[in-house]
């Protein structure tokens, strides 16, 4: 499906204003990577937002915010260059095609735009690959305390738990010991998402000859490792507990 039709203008605007739930945002981010016209639309909306915002900033403060943007731009550029070196050709192609500013005469307001997409807050991906209730509990406890502290400091942070191997049992609605806990966590934090390794699920289903019913509202990724690497490419922090 064409992603321009899939996402309404309201949804794109909500994304610009940071009002999307973690799930919707993930979906949009994935579509954005594939579809440059979508990215273009989003950048145009961001431009509108920043134009309005910057126009009404008191000028005395502008140099500060602008130098901040410049520094940020520099650091983003540096990190982009670094990842280009690591990731190789196709990745660099992606970055340069997306972030080139076409018109050299555009001023600060415009140039600051290319930082916005990368200015994502530090998101965290956690993984679980064990069926040990103690390990699983620790992960859930850590996740909760993380989310709680971010909530208090009002930082916009997204957390995703990726399960593969034996960790898949944590999300198996028949075997898990933490069904209620997972559900209440998900309900109280909309910036939390769960993902499970699709390959493990198929393998388990084949071995055990039963259909595995996962808990509701979770993503099935191509594979657990792939999901974690994908998140790291998107700039997420990977933490092993």
């Amino acid at each position: 499906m064409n992603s321009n039709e899939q996402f309404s203008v309201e949804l794109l605007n909500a994304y610009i204003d940071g009002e999307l739930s973690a799930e919707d945002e993930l979906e949009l981010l994935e579509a954005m990577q594939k579809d440059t016209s979508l990215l273009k639309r989003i950048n145009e909306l961001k431009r509108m937002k920043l134009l309005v915002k910057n126009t009404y900033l008191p000028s005395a403060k502008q140099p500060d915010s602008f130098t901040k943007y410049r520094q940020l731009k520099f650091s983003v550029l540096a990190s982009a260059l670094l990842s280009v070196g690591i990731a190789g050709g196709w990745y660099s192609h992606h970055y340069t095609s997306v972030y080139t500013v076409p018109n050299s005469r555009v001023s600060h307001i415009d140039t600051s735009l290319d930082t916005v997409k990368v200015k994502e807050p530090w998101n965290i991906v956690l993984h679980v690959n064990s069926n040990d209730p103690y390990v699983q509990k620790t992960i859930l406890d850590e996740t909760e305390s993380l989310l709680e502290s971010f909530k208090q400091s009002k930082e916009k942070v997204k957390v995703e738990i990726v399960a593969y191997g034996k960790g898949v049992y944590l999300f198996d609605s028949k075997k898990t010991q933490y069904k209620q806990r997972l559900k209440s966590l998900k309900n109280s934090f909309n910036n939390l998402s769960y993902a499970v390794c699709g390959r493990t699920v198929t393998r388990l289903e084949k071995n055990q000859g039963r259909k595995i019913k996962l808990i509701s509202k979770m993503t099935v990724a191509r594979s657990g490792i792939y999901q974690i690497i994908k998140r790291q490419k998107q700039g997420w922090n990977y933490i092993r507990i």
Partner: protein
Amino acid sequence: MFNKYKLSKFCSEQRGLLLQLAYSWCHDRVLAEDLLQDALVKALKNISKVKHSKAIKAWFIQIMLNCWRDMLRKKQDLRDIDELVSDDSNSLDNDSHLYEKLTPEESLYQKELQLNVKKALSRLSVKYRTVLTLVDIYGASYTEVSVIIDAPIGTVMSRVSRAREELRKYLTVEPDLERVVPLYNRPVVRGDE
């Protein structure tokens, strides 16, 4: 319990932002200050109506919005947008040249751009302008805006997107011909040298 100390704390913390917001509504520095002042007076009078200090933000902006609506109704010596000429003696940043580290060309381009944004914004209807300024300038969340304008979130969402769409139209449809092109960007004409 909410009291006037908390109100004064809120106002002193948020003064800059509130002033920017008021200015984006009426585009006049003096009027913006009046607006804030009026809102504060009204807020002090009605302070006993606020039950919870969390509600103060929405409540205060609501009052300010009402003051602005009153002002529009009375047609109180409002500056027309055509008078928003580039001499910005009345804007919030009339001493900007002291702080900006820009070349004259950059500064001029910046000013023109800002003036165009201001013009475009004031062409928006009041309901679109309110929502957009609350979100973009004041940084309110959709929930807060929906409380302030007393409408469901869906309405806020559609108003935000329509406002941005209209703004984009006003900013791009108008031809760019009038813009002064800096000398170094002008095409070289043979025989000029």
